[in-house]
């Protein structure tokens, strides 16, 4: 659905996008992540025909952004990162405004707006002034607006920013619902845990260069320090039992343990296992055998954050 090849964009001497090649298939939810100033917004603006690339081509729904802007505009919905709203309209008028801009017949508008508001949970605010909505509600209104003309491709730039935890979860389920309806989504966000849960594929970009594009599981695999590393488990021990360092010595003899680090002051023990399927109970048994009293036992989950931190250098552009 979305294809770019060697997309390049300069702003003066600054290279905002550097030969970005990307491909997103139909029905995918593509999570687009990268540090501030990486070029996410620039990419989306090029895809929605708002900015002209200096070099390279971008195709959306099979149309070239340079020549078939009008066809693309009909099949995409773009939600900018900073949503400007008209201060003198109500929610209903705002949506009507865009429905009319997309050429939807007057008769059909009321029904569509009703449905879209229902989907974004804004029905209560239908006749409130857009200006008076809270930031999160405006964000939802932005999503509602994008849906008015039932586009095939959605380009959402940080849709979850400014939402409360509950609304964030709702937004996520809304996006998942949209993906289920067969739409292609490109979502940029800084909240990685969220993207990790709903994306089918992710792209990591830094300084205009695409560092990684592929499935989420692959990205997780890259988060590990080395090929031999498996799960990591953090154990906290009570003060009454054996110290972490004594247990550490006992553990390191086991072939399933790659490395163990003890911290006697905080009474924690971090155990890295080797790769492969291991039952964790062997650890428990060993610690108890060494007179250790376990306060908590926590396998560390690999997160998208780790992949992100590992792949990006954190340099600002």
């Amino acid at each position, binding site marked *: 659905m979305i294809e770019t090849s060697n997309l390049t964009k300069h702003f003066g001497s600054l290279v905002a996008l550097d030969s970005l090649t990307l491909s997103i298939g139909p029905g995918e939810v593509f999570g687009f992540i990268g540090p501030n100033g990486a070029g996410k917004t620039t990419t989306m*603006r090029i895809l*929605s*025909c*708002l*900015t*002209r690339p200096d070099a390279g081509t971008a195709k959306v729904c099979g149309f*070239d*952004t*340079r*020549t*078939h*802007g*009008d066809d*693309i*505009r*009909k099949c*995409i*919905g*773009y939600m*900018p990162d*900073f*949503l*400007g*709203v*008209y*201060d*003198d*309209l*109500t*929610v*209903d*008028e705002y949506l*009507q*405004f*865009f*429905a*009319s*801009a*997309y*050429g939807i017949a*007057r*008769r059909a*508008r*009321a*029904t569509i*707006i*009703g449905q879209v508001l*229902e989907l974004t949970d804004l*029905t*209560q605010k*239908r*006749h*409130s*002034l857009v*200006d*008076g909505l809270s930031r999160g509600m405006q964000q939802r209104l932005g999503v509602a*607006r994008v849906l008015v003309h039932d586009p095939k491709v959605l380009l959402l730039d940080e849709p979850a920013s400014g939402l409360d935890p509950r609304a964030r979860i709702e937004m996520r389920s809304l996006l998942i619902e949209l993906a289920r309806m067969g739409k292609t989504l490109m979502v940029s966000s800084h909240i990685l845990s969220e993207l990790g849960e709903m994306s089918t594929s992710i792209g990591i970009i830094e300084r205009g260069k695409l560092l990684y594009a592929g499935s989420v599981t692959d990205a997780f695999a890259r988060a590990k320090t080395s090929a031999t590393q498996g799960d990591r488990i953090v154990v906290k021990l009570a003060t009454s039992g054996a110290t972490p360092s004594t247990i550490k010595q006992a553990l390191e003899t086991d072939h399933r343990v790659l490395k163990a680090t003890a911290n006697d002051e905080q009474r924690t023990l971090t155990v890295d296992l080797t790769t492969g399927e291991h039952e964790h109970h062997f650890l428990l048994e060993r610690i108890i055998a060494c007179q250790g009293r376990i306060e908590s036992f926590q396998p560390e989950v690999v997160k998208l954050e780790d992949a992100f931190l590992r792949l990006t250098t954190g340099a600002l552009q």
Partner: protein
Amino acid sequence: MTQPRTPTTTTAAAAPAEAAKPKSWVPRRSWRPSLSRVLGGPVFAKEVWVLGKRLSTSWVRFIYGFLLLGMLAIVVVNATDSYSYSGNMGNLQALQAYQQIAPVVTIAVLGFQFGMLPLMGCVLGGSAVCEEVRAGSLATLLSTPLKAWQIVMGKLLGRCTELLILSLLALPVLLMARVLGGVNGESLIAPTVLCAANALLALQISIWTSARAKHAAGAIAGAIGVLFVLWVLPSVLVGVLMSVPTMPFKGLNPAFITLLSPPMVFLVKLGDIASWGAPPFQTLHWVWSVVSSLALTGLFFVLSTRAVRRAMVATALLGPGAGRTTKKAPPDKRRAVSISQDVPMAATPALDGASPAAPLDSSPDSPQETNEAARQRKRKKSAVVEGYSRTVGDNPVLWREVQQRFTRGQWALPVALGICCCALLFLYWMSSMKEGLQIGVAMFGAVILLLLAALQTPGAISSEREGRTLDVLLTTPLSARAILWGKLLGSAKRLAPLYVAIALHLFFSGVLPGITRYIFLPLDEVVRFLRFASPAFANNSDFIPEHIDGYRSYLGWDPARVDPVAILAFLLVLACTVFMQFAVGLLLSAVMRRTTPATICNLLLWILVWAFLPVVLAIVDNGLIDLYGALHPVVLMAMVLDGGTDNAALSATYDVPDNNVQAFTFFVFLVLYCFAATGVGLGALKVASLELGFAGGRKR
């Protein structure tokens, strides 16, 4: 020796006490009335810095300097011509020649300054507050300890520096006129100070209008209007009152009228330089005019402070732009909404049921929730009311433009129109509708309309860009043409009342005088009754001045008639010109990033084309100005009314500057002009749509 020790001891004493808690990294200061605080401190610094950094500022300075130099060069060349200056004169002769040109040069420069600086003041201040309100940064300022008056002062002084820089451009010339040309010092200082005081007043007024308006363009238009009224109204009022015999103003020196209007005082002072004759009042009276301008500035400073405070509170409570044009529903209606919010389960199905069944294009609302709001909206025609949604038309951009209102209160427009009507009727009555009045009023209205037209569209696209709504608009399939025409027609709709008013005035006073004179009969009766009832009136033989007597026997009352063809031609020229100005404004708005520079450029452009160029041409060459005059809308409009008064427009001769032309030739010129103006307008729209569609394959 003792001086530096004092601060050291205080820190030493304070140190042990504060050692325990981490110190704030901002040195704490008590409020001292320091100079920088009084001057607005950070706001001032930011204003100066930002203004200085912008590219548009340098452009404005450049254009201003360019205009000044151009005019100077022309004046000097022309003056040296007429004083037969030649290259091989001795030093003494050259100096003499220079002394002869010096007054002319001085008058030209000072006149230019007085024309431009107050205008620049209006333009510079127009964006001062409203842009911040829309960007939401005013609310941020509210959270700092800055006072509203400090903000106003900072903005005022920040923009003053810009005015100062512009006015300094002329300083070398004036100094030379003083040193080499021997122009009297006071006659240089007086106009300069008058000019500065009025520019300051203009700036302060525009900051005030900016705090009340929504967009910079509206603020600028408002400021120009207020300034104009302040310049004209007092002397007109006093003039009228002086003509009424029973008033104590009767014995007043007529020079007083002049004194009340700064431009008049200025002209008189210019007259000093050229020694045009004895001034009508004593030399130092200009000081009075300056003082009154400064007093007005002070008044508007206080008003601005209040307005800014109100705007700050409004933005802080309701977000940017809130609480300005929109009307929140009164409490009883809000309660109705909140009740339905409390019971979401009950309300949602009702909405669901109502929406699909909404008949045709009537408002798609649930009845129980919005009936009240609808009724309220009907009562206050088309006001934005929370709780009720209007139906959007098929060109959404046009729809929104048309819904936008020119003035804030719903009564402002009717009241303004009412006042205008009364003033017109009064004028008709006073002057018995002679020709000069009809043309004068129409031309006055036309010039105001052209001025407003230059301010309408430059913000149209750029304000959407500034409000971050343009991106969203450009991702819809709306064609660039639909957007531009929507904006253009919306602007046209906003100015329509004035256009219609001008048309009505011409129709009423020119075509229908046979009927309209009866309207004044009741007034006649009133006067008669007063005479009868009040001995004071009856005994005053002065009371029936000639104009009242003139119309008393209405049979002898003979107003001028304007041929309808001439009126139509007048309106056509006006419409084409306004269209061209709209289109060029839109182009500037699309090309330039920000509203304020686009507005300034559009205004300067049209002042250059309509006012500056003719003056220059007139100085340079008589033949050129005749040709230009034939293509100048204001001249064309005046000519067509003049020729069509008491004549059939199509067979009259037209008094084009310097020679009379037959109707045919004249109308050929007129039609040519209309075609040219429309063509320029369409071209500008085309370029603007190319610019808007530049990013990606947009249909133009």
